[in-house]
């Protein structure tokens, strides 16, 4: 089943001779349950692509469908609600709100949605993330790896259709990096979570089902990863 479809997606910055075509006429689609790695040199437009897929940027042209919904046809409020229910976003660092404790950060999408928190589910999640004894701490009291695990937990708490992660391990040492990747793989394998992960790390890319290489705003290669 097709979960994500992108058609003729473009994002230009500025105008005239100084115009930067960060993303230029990109089309592809992702099946439900796929784990896609996105690689490419610096400045090639990976982050731009991810922002557009997550519905947090303005596009210049093209369409993005997530579960049959054209993201950029939604008004701002509908898009926000769609995002908090169907899309999980994880950035390289500073994903957490410093005024909220771990528990609140974790359940932020639910709180925004006015939904009740299922305590057993939350406990399970905390256990999987390995932060069950840190629930009352503020983010700055956590290590970078712990922070990153909390942001992954937050991105997944609503069981979204799509998880987008922009260099989730970019800021971490190899041990923490391994833990975070194990976590992502766990959700992919056990829960059938669809994943799109931007990375510079070949070893991470190898764990994916499929590798998309972006170069200069275009998709240069789109290939299955051999295990």
């Amino acid at each position, binding site marked *: 089943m097709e979960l994500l479809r992108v058609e003729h997606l473009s994002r230009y910055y500025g105008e005239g001779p100084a115009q930067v075509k960060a993303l230029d006429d990109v089309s592809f689609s992702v099946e439900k349950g796929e784990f896609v790695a996105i690689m490419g040199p610096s400045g090639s437009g990976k982050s731009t692509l991810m922002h557009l897929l997550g519905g947090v940027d303005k596009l210049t042209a093209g369409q993005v469908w997530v579960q049959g919904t054209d993201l950029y046809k939604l008004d701002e409020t509908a898009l926000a609600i769609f995002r908090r229910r169907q899309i999980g976003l994880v950035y390289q660092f500073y994903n*957490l*709100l*410093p005024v*909220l404790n771990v528990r609140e950060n974790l359940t*932020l999408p639910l709180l925004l949605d006015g939904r009740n928190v299922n305590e057993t589910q939350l406990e399970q999640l905390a256990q999987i993330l390995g932060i069950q004894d840190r629930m009352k701490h503020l983010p700055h009291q956590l290590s970078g790896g712990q922070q990153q695990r909390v942001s992954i937990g937050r991105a997944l708490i609503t069981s979204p259709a799509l998880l987008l992660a922009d260099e989730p391990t970019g800021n971490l040492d190899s041990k923490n990096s391994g833990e975070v990747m194990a976590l992502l793989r766990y959700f992919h394998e056990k829960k059938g979570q669809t994943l799109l992960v931007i990375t510079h790390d070949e070893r991470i890319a190898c764990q994916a089902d499929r590798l998309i290489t972006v170069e200069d705003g275009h998709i240069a290669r789109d290939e299955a990863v051999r295990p």
Partner: protein
Amino acid sequence: MKNIIHTLTRAQMRANPRRTLVTLIGVILSVTMLTAVFAGADSFLNLLYRQAAQDNGTWHGRAFETGEQVVQNLSQDDRVDQLGLAAGWGMVPLDDQNRWGAALYGVNQSFYQLLGVECLEGTLPAKENELAITRTIAEKTGWKLGEQVSLDLLRVWTPQGMDSTGATTYRQTSGLGIMGLSDSYVIHSVGENQFTITAIVDPGGFDDQNVLTWEPCFTALEEQIPPDGLWCAYYTVNPLGQELYNLMEDIQNWQAALPADAGGVGTIDLNRQLLLYYGMDYPGSLLLPAFYGLMAVTLLIILVGAVSLARNAFAISMSERTQMLGMLASVGATRAQKRQSVLYEAFILGLIGIPFGLAAGCGGMAVALILLNQQVQELFQFTQSLYLSVRPMFLVAAALLAALTLAFSALQPALKASRVTPMDAIRGEGQIQLHSSDMKTGKLTRMIFGFPGVLALKNCKRNRGRYRAIVFSLALSVIVLVAGTGLSYYVDRAMGVRYGAGSPIATATITFNDPSLDTTPYTDELKALAGTGEARVVGGLQAGAMGSFTLDWADMSQETINWLQSQTDLSEEEDTSGGSQSSTIYPTLLVMEDEEFAAWAGQGVSLNPDYLDCVMITSTYLNYEGSYTQLKNALNLRPGFSMDFAQEGGFADTWHIAALAEDFPYSGNTVTDTSIDSLTLQLVTSRSVFQAFLDRQESQNREGAYYWQIQYIHPESISALTNGLQDWSLNNSYGLPAGVVSAYYNTLAMGGLQRFGMLLQILCVGFVLLLCLVCMANIHNSLSTGMELRAREYGILRSVGITPADFRKMIWLESLFYGIKALCWSLPLGLGVLALEYCAIRRAFQFPFCLPVEIVVLAIVLVLGVCWFSGLLTRRNLAEQTIAQAIQKTIC
């Protein structure tokens, strides 16, 4: 060599002009508030100075009616800078009945200067036998410039007391301050002298301010003045300081050596109101300490706000520069160098901000003073107007304090900056460290405001120091506002019980006894006085003129009976209530102009002019020995009730109640000073009904007392009006026309309590305005810097899916929470203070407790308005950027 840290700091400030501007505005606002306090205080002192210079002159101290020896000592004293002298020559009655006249003084040039004597026409006397007279003397006597007059001068001693043998003792007077020439005075002639009138002057500060008895006139101070007269010496000292007090003490000693009847008991005092400007007052007086204390408290409270404002500005620009500092640290910058970065920024901001702040503070105060002028003038009965006038000294003090504030505010961020490590820069730390305990919010917040409310409250609290400073200032504004205006509200209520609300500033009353007299010229004359402004005419009959009647207690309210009984209990020796169970009622009548009566009474009331048809007022104000009470529906009299009256040698007619009204139409003499068992009954009628009544009296050849009164409600110029009324009463003192019994005026000087209430109100309003400004600046700064610093956080929040509506709600609530929190603390406290104030005032004035709802509402609206407005400014700057931009912003 260029300092690299300074260069970097400047570059950083230039790189983010918006951030720098926000910080600069924070600095300017802090300086503005401090300056405003200094400018306001000095302008007020300056007003006192100018008013004193006008009322009394510019002298520092004086020995009034002292002896010649004192004057001689003074003229040889080198502490004295300028010495104005007036040697009393004698007095000349200028009226057949010796009621008033001129008091002649030989004066020197300094006297004219120090007393502000102004030459209106001609030239001031330079030689002996030249004479300057006042305008009043010129008008009353008809003397002209150049005219030769012969003055038969007298010296006067007034009785002073008795000595041990029982003989009367006397003291000499130079003329000012006594009335007429009494038979009990000892009077000696000092001979007749010829003078040429060369000038008409305004005697300036050498004047009895309001009464015409002995008008001063001046000639040159020469040898020919007979010895042993009284002298008035006015001096300034140089340098002004402690020596003034020493000199005053010396004068006291010199004077003590003189005999009592020859200057030994003269008045020695200081031009206090003027000296306050120089920070001097009588030793031991608490006036100046109180003034400076008030200023200090105000400054202190503003300082709390200013420091938190400035400190935050620096802290934020510092945390924004964590990256730079971390980089510097990584290449080996010392702590001192990192510290320097913040301090240097403070220095630059101070250099730009302080001059702007000084200008803005003065500018703001200039406007505020113009707005306050009218009230201050009325309050202190000043003729000089209040405007901005600041001595450089005060500006320097404001600038210094501002510089200290900035330095103090920059200190903590600077220390923090010195501790930034490369690691902090990488991890993006440097923001104020949060504590889990501060970030707790109650379930109630979530229930009432939803999750955006929780986020907003946490954001408010993340900077604890500032959160508290803002809440404290807002709470203080509410308490000051509620307590201050609440007190004047209760004072007004109390005064309303005493005089009726909105008492006129002045009244002039003429009592007539001839009903056939055309009284309009008399009232028209009063209405045409200069400075009258808004005025109205009322008339009537005093209690007693309509006789009295007895009313059974059965026809009175229980409250009234209780009151009457409590009053009789107070004076048991005169038990009049015994078995009588009735009281005497004295009707009084107020007459209103027909149109005003119609407007007040309404359409339904029409009066029959065939008898005294009236509206009865059902509330009664009572005064018994200083305790004021208001009774409602005291007497059970209904429309249709009528009563005849016939006063022996007075009026006779019938009065009739056409309708009832709860309240008196306007203030006036509505309070009954009761005797123990009597009450008054207030009736109101229209002018045409009253005129018909007068016509009936005339046709029956009856005569009786009735009055017309001009009530000056809003005079255009109080001083002009007061002068006009003085002249009017003076003219009347030379004899009243037939048919007029008496003519007098009253300026209802505000009662002490009322003045106090008004002063308090002015102070409170000014204070609250300042506080609100501080809060507004603080909240705005907090929100707008939050917006910038937390751009990424907000980006995350939006990317997680907060709806635009919820996001706006969060920002909106963040500004509002300061106010809500402040109200939670301050409203109960403010209401408590109100209750205390009510209890205090109730001791003397009885009126039912009433909550000044409008004040409470005003306080709530003000606080929430301040918050809302501060937030509004910020929200306008929001929007635009996409979430992606916000998230990336702080990464690079």
